[in-house]
């Protein structure tokens, strides 16, 4: 398994915000919600649309294209039209940097 990659200073991800980053060729969405930082796939499992412009609240993100919602902690699809989860990634904060394991 690959190690952690340093991707973004914590200060650039205030509470209630999200930011897409590329790590090892994958588009990862960093989400600061519910007082935690999550790292999830930036691609919706339903129709491969990008999630980064979707609404985030209380630990979930909604796909802006067709409205599928995903739980940030588990990747679980919360409502149609998605049925499959999105990938989630280990995330940690070291020396004020967000690090992700992809």
């Amino acid at each position, binding site marked *: 398994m690959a190690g952690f990659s340093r991707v973004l200073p914590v200060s650039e991800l205030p509470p209630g915000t999200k930011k897409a980053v590329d790590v090892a060729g994958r588009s990862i969405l960093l989400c600061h919600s519910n007082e935690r930082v999550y790292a999830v796939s930036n691609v919706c499992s*339903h129709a491969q649309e990008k999630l980064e412009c979707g609404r985030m609240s209380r630990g979930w993100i*909604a796909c*802006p294209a067709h*409205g599928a*919602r995903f739980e940030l902690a588990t990747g679980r699809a919360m409502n149609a039209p998605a049925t499959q989860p999105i990938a989630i990634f280990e995330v940690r904060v070291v020396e004020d940097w967000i690090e992700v394991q992809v």
Partner: protein
Amino acid sequence: MSTNVELKKGEARCPGAPSTQEIIAGDKVQAPDWVRSESYVFLGDEDIPTDRYIDPKYAKLEFDRLWTRTWQFACREEHIPEVGDYYVYDLGPYSFIVTRVARHEIRAYYNACLHRGTKLRASGSLGHASEFKCSFHGWSWNIDGSNKTVVCPWDFPHVDRQKFSLPQARVALLGGFVFINMDPDAPSLGDYLGPVAKAHIEAWKLEDRYVYLHVSKRFPANWKLVIEAFMEAYHVIVTHPQVAVSNGDANSQYDVYGAHVDRFISTLGVLSPHLYGKHTEQDILDQFTLGDSAAIGDARRTLGEGRTARAVMAEMFRGMFEKATRTDLSAVSDSELLDCFSYTLFPNCFLFPGISLPMVYRFRPDPRDHRKCLYEVLFLRPVPVDGKRPEPAEPIHLADDESFTKAPGMDPGFGAILDQDTSNLFMQQEGLEASAKHGLTLGNYQEIRVRNFEKTVDKYLAMEPKRGDLERLQSL
């Protein structure tokens, strides 16, 4: 000697007990006019036929005639704070995308693609959109409802995109709630509620509260039975004996404000008239159940010399709640702080504007089973004095057989009360189906809200089915 024989029907009140108004008049911080008024009317004493609860055909009539004409609470404004935010509201077979199209404008679109009918957003979902795009063939609509895209327009020369805007339900805002109505001919929400009830709701300033807990669960009974279980305090002494020690149940006050609104005021921190002589003021203080007790925690409840449980709890709750939630309650009366104010907004919404029981109930019929309904409780807290509005709580969905006490954040005492109500309803639904008697017999005063509710159901069921005209709904 009882003098009841000389009273007209509906005039009798619990003998030997102070009235709700007399209890409230003795409080330290006095209550506003909307609390200190009465509005009871006698509406008859004939039985209520029970086919409405047990016949699936009746549920179909309700979907065609009642739900298509009445104002319903769809969501809170805080669920859709930004332009483009949406919340899907479902009622039986009906579904609407409630969306903010401008800072001060909210619309409710029929949730179906005008191509081949696919829902544009899934039931029970919410999110943000710059367009509503169908996941089947990709036709899309702007958030103002105008058609944005017809995929392969060369194949649809017969489609005039100007005539393909999304049809709408009517929308009205009150107290931070978004109400919708499918009927273009219905009265305005203000006329529907009436001036007195509307003034009460406006006085509460519920727009300054936020949803801090939201719990839902299916109840094992017809939606009307479930609603009626919450309309009276008559059942408290038997169903919730643990509460009766601190609840003026038999001397609660009942009021009717026209066909669509009624209420009760059930005082807390006073002994049930059923239990006079059996408990002390310290017992009342010890057994005081609050819907939002988190602020009080395990604080010791001490009754001072010559003081009443009601006065002590008002003072204690005011101070601790203000501190815990960073709110200012200095102008709020003891009654508003402590008592249970239950208002029904026909057909399926209850508002409890008090501070200790700060709830909203919503009941929706299960379109596949007239013996089931979806119950939701939303607890509202004042927005903190620093003005930062917390995001509304994510709903917690309990399984059918799961206890309300298992919902994280639910006060255990209050959860136990809801569990007791649930058990009754299952027994009542089955009992009505088993009974040789085909009518409910109601008390003239304590069950007046049940009668008012069913009279209004009758009014709508006597109407013709209502089906919206597409062109009219598109031009709202």
